[in-house]
């Protein structure tokens, strides 16, 4: 049960991070991993085995859309960009994340004494 909840949390977080990476413009999958690496100062590692299923799932949900183009290295690449629905979803997920993160911070910084049994 605890393992399942962790997986859900991670999945939801990954979606939010990908949506955030696309807020600054369209990117292909490799650019997204590079952006996350750089922006998080290598603190967050997104595996390709999670990245691409997440990208395709979000595209089916209508949060992002894709088209084929040319990369900087002149290779054919699939680029993703945010849709209006994706922007709304990102806003919603950030709000939820901030709420959750505040709650967790509150718990971690509380100096109260635990209840005696």
């Amino acid at each position, binding site marked *: 049960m605890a393992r399942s909840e962790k997986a859900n949390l991670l999945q939801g977080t990954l979606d939010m991070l990908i949506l955030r990476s696309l807020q600054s413009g369209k990117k*292909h*999958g490799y650019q997204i991993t590079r952006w996350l690496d750089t922006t998080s100062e290598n603190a967050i590692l997104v595996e*390709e085995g999670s990245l*691409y299923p997440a990208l395709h799932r979000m595209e089916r949900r*209508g949060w992002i859309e894709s088209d084929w183009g040319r990369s900087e*290295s002149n290779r054919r*690449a699939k680029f993703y960009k945010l849709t209006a629905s994706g922007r709304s979803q990102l806003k919603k997920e950030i709000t939820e994340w901030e709420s959750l993160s505040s709650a967790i911070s509150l718990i971690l910084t509380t100096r109260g004494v635990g209840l005696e049994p």
Partner: protein
Amino acid sequence: MISRQLKYLYQYVHSSSWIGSSKPFDDINEELEFHIAERTDAFIAGGMDANQARQAAIEKFGDKAAITRTLHREGVAGMAWVHRIHVALTMTMSACVFFLLANWLIQKEVASDSIHDLPPAVASLMNEKWTGDVCGVVTHSDGDAIEGASVLMSVKTWPGGSFFQRAYTTTTDASGRYCVKDVCPVNDVYEVQIAVVVKHHQMQSKYLEMDGGTLENVVFALPESEVMQLQVIDATGEPIPGIRVLPHGRIDESGRHHVVYFDSGQDIIQSTDGDGQTSFAFFRPGDQATFLIEVEKDNWIPFDVRVPKTGVTAAIQLSS
């Protein structure tokens, strides 16, 4: 919601992303391969040689085949409803096309069998609309209906320039009514000969020339008749038993001819008894009667006889 479904539909139509197609696999593989290539370039830029960089990029990427299968399976599942509708519509339309085609072929086959493969005259005969009826009433001369009168009918037609004659027989019902349906071409010329024969009434006939249409009410009013005794004898005067005789016609006192056609009069043929005699109750004394006698097998010869007074036997003598 609706726009997303429409987008699925658009993707389904334009990306051929359906079960069994290799295109989705190709797109996914190209996308993942691009990622590995970009990573390889980064490793090369970091100092690795090309082979090492490629190998390291592949290892870092993970199980590419498993990722490809996952993406394809989930992509197809996302469009499964479109695919199901597509299959259902295709099957329905195929069934409709098959049904229409089969129906057309059957119709064509039937038409071909029934008309086009037949000789032109018969095809023309069958192509005609035979929906015209011949109906009427038979009464006594005083107007009372006669039930059970034999109505003998021949219909002559000329379809496609050929001549066809067909015979029909019927009897009148309790109200004296008779009707033979679907025997005349309503859109073409035809002629109908009708004879009415009933015991103890004078045989009558009518000949009608028609230019299409139907005959709704051909009326016969039959006066009573006497019983005529007829004997058939040979050249030596000996009676001929068992010879077949058809009352073929009569000329009444006004000079009018009444005829029973041979092909429609088979039901009123009689055979002579042991004395070479038979009787007919269709004539009036003084009529000139015509009989067809079968002198040999299928050889019928006409004989005219003046109908005598009641009680007197008329004789027909056959030559040797």
